[in-house]
């Protein structure tokens, strides 16, 4: 269906300028709040979520209108919680959805796509989506200093987007993070604080800093707005599939937020009439060295048991006490999906497989997603003849150490045909 708007037909519609956000609402008790930098309910500490006027959105969007806009996440601006134009990250999103036939053959399935946020702009992970919303909101609220606790990708994104927006940023990371992710934060002039501790300890410190200094922390006091940016992954997938959703989607899990926002996006599109059906089974992927959510799903628990000391090469997923774990478990179960976890060896193998079948170099979290998909297919939980989307959320150039020992070293020769030709005869694969 294609619902034409009655009076709105340009990019700068008047209603969009004030947005469609009513305010914030507690996910537990429903208490409402205004649009303010607050992330939890003062009645029961429940997380707050953005509350939209979907009837108004329905009156103002159509497939045609959205498709005529530039191919960025802001194509779906009515469903994102900013007022007016995005002040930060106008070019974020619009990443490819790739029909992955060679990987499909390797996994033994018929229909497989990859949503490739390894090439998201500007810092090569899906985090640019959440950060562009959070920092646009930070500008609206008048914050001049922003920050985050991060396992790496969020650090890169907050640092880069803050630099572009002229904001001062403080980035708190576990001190043992991959060197590339630290360098990819410092380059933007961010003040980087390496904390000797786990991500959860960094996060706790950050919350205390946020209370003391009243800065805009993207994943603390700006979190309700920040988290909404993840929905754009789901909006784009549905649009790229021709305004419909896949039957199965596999999503990596760290804090457990993204996996909730993709089906939320599908539900919102259905609610305003842009798609007919939002039914999709959702599968969560975690590394075995930090699998609180998948462990809870597999054991039938309602909430996760925290992992005190995560130990995995997938450091971007090493959150032992995921804040959205409870919701992720519930969502996975209600969708009819499942969750699995995979070893470091399986993760690295899957990174190589993805590279060699699809030409995509994903970070370790991508290896987790592909390896978990393979496991679920082999278990028969994901049927081989149905449509599957895998979410690749970060770029392998950031986590090179994970695979360096698995790759052939280049053959070194003098610049001579005499030395080269025998190599072709001996190892034909080497010239592919």
């Amino acid at each position, binding site marked *: 269906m294609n619902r034409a708007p009655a009076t709105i037909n340009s990019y700068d519609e008047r209603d969009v300028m004030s947005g469609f956000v009513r305010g914030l609402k507690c996910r*537990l008790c429903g208490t409402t709040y205004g649009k303010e930098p*607050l*992330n*939890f309910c*003062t*009645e*029961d*500490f*429940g*997380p707050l979520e953005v509350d939209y006027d979907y009837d108004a959105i329905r009156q103002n969007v159509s497939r045609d209108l959205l498709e005529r806009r530039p191919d960025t996440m802001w194509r779906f601006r009515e469903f994102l919680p900013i007022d007016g134009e995005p002040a930060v990250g106008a070019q974020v999103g619009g990443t490819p959805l790739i029909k992955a036939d060679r990987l499909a053959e390797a996994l033994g399935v018929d229909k497989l796509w990859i949503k490739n946020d390894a090439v998201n702009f500007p810092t090569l992970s899906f*985090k640019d989506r*959440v950060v562009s919303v959070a920092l646009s909101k930070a500008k609206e609220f008048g914050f001049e200093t922003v920050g985050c*606790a*991060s*396992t790496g*990708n*969020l650090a890169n994104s907050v640092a880069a987007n803050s630099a572009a927006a002229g904001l001062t940023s403080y980035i708190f990371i576990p001190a043992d993070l991959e060197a590339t992710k630290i360098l990819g934060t410092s380059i933007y002039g961010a003040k980087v604080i390496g904390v000797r501790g786990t*991500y*959860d*300890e960094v*996060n*706790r410190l*950050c*919350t*205390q800093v946020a*209370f003391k200094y*009243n800065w805009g922390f993207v*994943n*603390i006091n700006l*979190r309700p707005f*920040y*988290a909404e940016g993840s929905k754009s992954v789901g909006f784009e997938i549905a649009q790229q599939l021709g305004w419909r959703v896949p039957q199965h989607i596999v999503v990596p899990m*760290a*804090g457990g*937020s993204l996996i909730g926002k993709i089906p939320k996006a599908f539900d919102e599109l259905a609610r305003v009439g842009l798609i007919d059906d939002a039914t999709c089974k959702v599968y969560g992927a975690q590394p075995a060295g930090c699998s609180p959510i998948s462990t809870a799903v597999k054991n039938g628990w309602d*909430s996760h048991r*925290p992992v*005190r000391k995560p130990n995995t090469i997938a450091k*971007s997923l090493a*959150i032992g*006490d*995921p*804040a*959205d774990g*409870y919701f992720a478990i519930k969502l996975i179960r209600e969708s009819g999906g499942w969750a699995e976890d995979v070893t470091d060896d399986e993760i690295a193998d899957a990174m190589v497989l993805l590279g060699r079948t699809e030409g995509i170099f994903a970070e370790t979290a991508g290896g987790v997603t592909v390896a978990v998909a393979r496991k679920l297919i082999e278990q028969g939980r994901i049927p081989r003849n149905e449509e599957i989307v895998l979410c690749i959320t970060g770029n392998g150039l950031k986590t090179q150490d994970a695979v360096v020992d698995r790759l052939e070293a280049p053959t070194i020769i003098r610049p001579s045909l005499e030395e080269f030709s025998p190599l072709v005869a001996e190892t034909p694969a080497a010239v592919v």
Partner: protein
Amino acid sequence: MAIRIHIPTPMRQHTDGNAVVEVSGETIQAALDALGEKYPAITQRVFDNGQVRRFINIYLNDEDIRYLDNLETAVKDGDEVSIIPAVAGG
């Protein structure tokens, strides 16, 4: 000396604006009960049927009490107790 309980900013409306409340007690439970005696409104927000609510973490001197003895964790004068809402990450 006493046990110092740190209150998150948005919750200070329930503690007369105080960022830190000093109490005494032998365990985390006793300290939080003492907090509740001074400011009853905070207790009903931290506890639900005697259990710490799902989206709250409580720390004793920077250590999550779930990794200690939970509410039975022993405390002494000079200890710092923090009530911190769970936050997202990535």
